[in-house]
């Protein structure tokens, strides 16, 4: 583990370099991590206490804005940093660079790249290419640099990306690859090259370039996240040849999360929290992982906490809204929606939150409208596609739902929700066999979710297919995955009953009964289980046990009670056997 102080120094230098190159979102990220590092108590000064967080009672944190001048030899330099501190290649920026940078800051990208047209230093070349790329790039959210909607319309035209832009992108790529060949490129240039290659669809080359970039300059989070988006399987991830650096841990954390290895990811974040104990980023990521593990209550607390510390945060808030949706917390959701809308209503996340709110309110048309808006802002916004699919399903517009889900799946083929949605939609249309394929797909990506197994089982169970054996197998899997809704056990019992396997049926009814007892539930399922068990045990001549179930039934009113009474009578008769009957027969 590297020391906190060395981390801090690295990040500080990195922020300067990143913002010098106008990689603002990476700089922003680094900044967040910088203040996320827990302050050493030795560095404590009372003046810093005003930065202390009020929210969480455990948390205390100190600003670090004046510690550059006071190095801590005992901590900071006791061990050499894993990677040499980032070095500036040009100490003094050229005048033209300064001008270009200010143009860039004013979002005058063309102008910025024009100013730097003849500059040969690596830094200038990077900024020129980067500015050019930003002009060309039609993705709205590139490296977090938001582009205005009008600009999009101007650029896009009816054909999407216009030809001219494509051509310029090709020439940009050519220039970068030439630079790379001659070695006249720094790690930032490599990063940009990787991004351009990714845009062109050349994933493996892009990966190679990005790996080279992060190995030589690990503090550029944008490069890491681009790399992460290119790691679509664990094999690819493992095949990457990455130098050890604490930034790699961040990368692995988010990569694991994307690959649905949530516990691994959580472990990474826990490890990182030793240093970056106050990082909002880590907290949000942990919340995400917990969300995937369906720990909604915990996630809600974490997000509340997060919002208290960082009230104008919009990132990841769509996830929070999902949690609130799942918990059906209408008021909280509307509060959140209002808040993010005030912060920035032209973010896809904001629109998505509002969509969720309307969906919870049952106003599906409006929800669709907001999801659409989110998608207009970011066409690759996965969860909006999926959520829109859900809305269409609610509106019984299956073909639109299918279309939306399919788009989600094409954006990210690992999205099990969308696969599940597709299956559901086809099942709704009475095509259970066709739907099975989709359910299978979704289960492939999330094999430990009982809901998916139950959905598949229902498909098999449908009257059209009537493949009960397969259904039983699915329900068994669901039970093994810890079926929370308790459907699987009941269904298993019923199916076995239907197939005439009374022993198995009794076994599952018993299990189901145990579950209901443990959860303190009652209902028709319980009556059913009790009646079956009682009858079954009675026919098997286990009268004592049968009596237990019967007496339990007697506690309830309704036809079951009568049934229990008659059963009991039968048991008595059978138990006392014929003698008693004889007694009746022969009056004294």
């Amino acid at each position, binding site marked *: 583990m590297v020391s906190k102080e060395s981390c801090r120094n690295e990040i500080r230098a990195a922020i300067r370099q990143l913002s010098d190159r106008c990689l603002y979102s990476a700089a922003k990220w680094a900044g967040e991590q910088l203040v996320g590092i827990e302050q050493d108590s030795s560095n404590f000064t009372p003046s810093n206490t005003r930065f202390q967080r009020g929210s969480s009672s455990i948390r205390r944190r100190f600003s670090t804005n004046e510690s550059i001048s006071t190095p801590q030899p005992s901590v900071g330099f006791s061990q050499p940093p894993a990677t040499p501190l980032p070095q500036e290649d040009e100490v003094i920026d050229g005048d033209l660079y300064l001008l270009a940078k200010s143009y860039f800051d004013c979002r005058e990208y063309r102008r910025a790249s024009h100013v730097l047209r003849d500059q040969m230093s690596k830094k200038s070349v990077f900024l020129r290419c980067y500015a050019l790329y930003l002009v060309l790039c039609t993705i709205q959210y590139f490296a977090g640099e938001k582009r205005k909607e009008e600009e999009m319309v101007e650029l896009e035209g009816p054909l999407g990306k216009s030809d001219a832009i494509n051509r310029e992108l090709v020439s940009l790529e050519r220039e970068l690859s030439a630079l790379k060949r001659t070695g006249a490129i720094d790690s930032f240039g490599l990063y940009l090259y990787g991004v351009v290659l990714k845009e062109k669809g050349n994933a493996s080359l892009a990966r190679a370039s990005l790996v080279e970039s992060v190995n030589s300059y690990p503090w550029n989070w944008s490069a890491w996240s681009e790399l992460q988006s290119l790691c679509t399987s664990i094999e690819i991830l493992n095949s990457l040849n990455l130098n050890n650096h604490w930034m790699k841990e961040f990368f692995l954390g988010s990569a694991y999360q994307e690959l649905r290895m949530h516990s691994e990811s959580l472990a990474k974040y826990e490890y990182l929290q030793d240093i970056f104990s106050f990082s909002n980023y880590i907290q949000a990521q942990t919340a995400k992982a917990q969300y995937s593990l369906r720990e909604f209550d915990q996630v809600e607390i974490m997000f509340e906490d997060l919002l208290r510390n960082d009230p104008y945060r919009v990132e990841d808030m769509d996830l929070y809204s999902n949690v609130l949706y799942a918990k059906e917390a209408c008021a909280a959701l509307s509060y959140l929606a209002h808040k993010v809308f005030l912060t920035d209503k032209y973010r896809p996340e904001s629109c998505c939150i509002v969509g969720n709110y309307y969906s919870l309110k049952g106003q599906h048309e409006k929800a669709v409208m907001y999801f659409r808006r989110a*998608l207009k802002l970011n066409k690759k916004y996965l969860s909006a596609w999926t959520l829109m699919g859900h809305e269409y399903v609610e509106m019984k517009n299956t073909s639109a739902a299918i279309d*939306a889900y399919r788009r989600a799946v094409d954006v990210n083929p690992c999205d099990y929700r969308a696969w599940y949605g597709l299956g559901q939609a086809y099942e709704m249309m*009475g095509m*259970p*066999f*066709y739907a099975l394929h989709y359910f299978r797909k979704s289960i492939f990506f999330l094999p430990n979710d009982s809901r998916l197994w139950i959905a598949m089982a229902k498909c098999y169970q449908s009257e059209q297919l009537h493949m009960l054996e397969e259904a039983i197998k699915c329900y068994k899997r669901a039970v093994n995955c810890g079926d929370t809704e308790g459907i699987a056990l009941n269904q298993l019992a019923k199916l076995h009953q239907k197939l005439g396997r009374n022993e198995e049926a009794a076994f599952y009814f018993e299990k189901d009964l145990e579950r209901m007892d443990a959860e303190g539930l009652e209902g028709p399922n319980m009556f059913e289980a009790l009646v079956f068990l009682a009858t079954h045990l009675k026919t098997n001549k286990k009268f004592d046990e049968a009596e237990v179930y019967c007496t339990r039934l007697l506690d309830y009113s309704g036809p079951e009670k009568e049934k229990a009474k008659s059963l009991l009578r039968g048991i008595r008769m059978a138990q006392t056997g014929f003698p008693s009957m004889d007694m009746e027969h022969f009056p004294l």
Partner: protein
Amino acid sequence: MAGLTRTAGAFAVTPHKISVCILLQLYAPSAQMSLPFPFSSISQHNRLGLYLLSLTKSCDDIFEPKLENLINQLREVGEDMDAWLTDHLTNRFSSLTSPDDLLNFFNDMRGILGSLDSVAAQDDQIILDPNSNLGMFVRRCILAFNLLSFEGVCHLFTSIEVYCREAHSSSAQYDASNDNLGSLIQHDQMDMEKYIMDKATEEIELQKNASGRVPFHLHTPEALFKVTEEQMKHACLLVTRKEKSSTNTKKAEATQLACASSSTVNDTLVDESLFLRTNYQIQGFLMEQADAIETHGSSLSSSSIESFLQKLQNLAPELHRVHFLRYLNKLHSDDYFAALENLLRYFDYSAGTEGFDLVLPSTGCSMYGRYEIALLCLGMMHFRFGHPNLALEVLTEAVRVSQQHSNDTCLAYTLAAMSNLLSEMGIASTTSVLGSSYSPVTSTASLLSVQQRVYILLKESLRRADTLKLRRLVASNHLAMAKFELMHVQRPLLSFGPKASVRHKTCPVSVCKEIRLGAHLLSDFSAESSTMTIDGSLSSVWLKDLQKPWGQPVFSQESGSRKSSTFFQFCDHLVSIPGSVSQIIGASYLLRATSWELYGSAPMARMNTLVYATLFGDSSSSSDAELAYLKLIQHLALYKGYKDAFAALKIAEEKFLTVSKSKILLLKLQLLHEHALHRGNLKLAQRMCNELGGLASTTMGVDMELKVEASLREARTLLAAKQYSQAANVAHSLFCTCHKFNLQIEKASVLLLLAEIHKKSGNAVLGLPYALASISFCQSFNLDLLKASATLTLAELWLGLGSNHAKRALDLLHGAFPMILGHGGLELRARAYIFEANCYLSDPSFSVSTDSDTVLDSLRQASDELQALEYHELAAEAFYLMAMVYDKLGRLEEREEAATLFKKHITALENPQDEEPNMA
């Protein structure tokens, strides 16, 4: 859903539309004179009017022409005042120096519209009626302009600048080329313009009944295949409007007009950039590609198609048919997962309507989509990849869903597919396949045998297809029926048993009837082509998956029609027969050939195959063509010897890629086996036999034909190796299998083989019943050639009982002789000849010295044929007999000659070398 991207289809002001507006201003200036200034005559004025009408009509859908093209067209319209017109146009454009000018321009435009209550107008006044086509156009332009935001206006302004600049830069060019090409072009363009005019006037009348067929104009599809970015951009533009255009046939016609005009301009000016691609064109082009994939099968490089599709998809992300093409491509390159993935994606996106919606507006637009088609396709995909159980489940679901959505067309196709599936796989299917059958059709018939189910399904499908007038389906159903009748004995299958065996019959007459009914399609089609559009509702490139070994395609295909007409234009006797129709008819010829093969007429079989290969070879699918080649090569091997056959095989192998289980590979193995057997190379024969068996799937009941073939050959190999009891064992178990799976026709040949085995083992008495049984089977199934061959065996058996039966044997043989000599292959004929000689020689009443020629003639004939066949064993026998006869006659020299030949064959038989012509 596609509404997300529909914005592109809205009416937007473009520089071209402004040009039209400027011209309209000229046409109907607000200062109302009877004839505006530049026009010298009313006809001239009208001419411009019609031209403008055609322009406004095409404004919705075309990729807009550049200014220079517009000017070129104006030159033709304007006649003597063209210079004035173009000058005015360019001047007007150059006077637009700021966005504000645009605003003023559109304000002026408002002036040329007459007021709505312009009843009071004088007669000779020129007023643009706001409700006329032109008036509507102007109003739409004004409205669209007013809706523009300021950025939009600026955008328009810059694009006008570009528009004008392009024209300037190329106008010089034009002048040069104009001078060079001279009056020829002028003339052409005049014609073209006239055409446009005529078209435009016709158009007005046509509008009322505008629901006719969708025209396809495919210019140089080859060029498109190379996909220059430029071209595809147009395609893309048009594609993005597809939702709109598909609902509006009127627009489609306008497009057609525009296409005609622009393409002629292009042809003369060689201006690539103006190629237009409507959605229909792209769809048609894709259909053509689909056809190409299907026709060339796996020989077409799948990666080249893939890259082309990738490009197309990048440019037109909303064109979902690309996914379908990709599916087809993957299907033919045997990539199961990719094929499945793309099929599902296609239907998820298009809901089964894109590509199918062109022709069936009435039943379309159901909000449920047409997912039953997805099921049908999926079922056929599973079928092709050899998952009959899955296929059956999916098709069952397809039946259910199409009933639910009352899509009778799909139902008919599904039933046809199902019957096809059952007849292919179902012969094999014991309860495992059909055990859990929920189909409403099959469940009622759960007690029936598979064959009966096939029959019922076919009948049902035929009935539906007939009522729905799906002619192609009717035809292919007839063919399927013919095939069924050909292969399966008549109905009373349930009462199979020794007593009922008399009633087992095939009925050649009904086969013939069905084939003819199938071929009626041709006359039907030429009689009424309009109904074909209904057929097209299931465009059904996908139905092509149906063709399997028997090469019996169920096609219906609306698109094929348009494009393959290019081929047929060259053979004028078949003009306007769509590819799919010719494919079905071709298939009927193949089926005829097959039936003649079975019934035992070699010449007829050969003739039909040749007819197919010459007439339908170009339009056929690869599997059909493969089948035809196979038949011809088989014929060669049987009647001309192996040398020719192998030479032909080589050609065929070059033409068709030999992938696993391809027919050509099978044929090769068969030929090699046959050849090795004849040459006495038993090891090789055994190896070939094993390889053949290895091709079959291990699943019980699948690939039965192949399995039967393999074990039949195995028994023959064992027989040749003189391992009689083993051979008999194999044959016995084979017979049991055939009986179990109801393979009646194969039974006959197995029985014959058993008789043969007993004959060879010298146990003639045991062989007799088998031979007789085989003959009776052949009789009831009308297998004449097989019967002749069985009769020969029977005669041989009789002779084997002793020479006192020679007379009877000879009589039998003579009875079969016409059939054997007329239709039999080399081997059979030689055998008959030798046997005849044998009979004579063993007949005590026959004297060699007096009647030597009868014997010698036959023997000579036999030896010639056997040498061609390289059948050493029989050849040796023939020469031996010949030498004996010569010896008896005392012709020593000839005797020696025969003896050396005998020796040669014997040594060749004893030392079989691997001097295979490196075919193995």
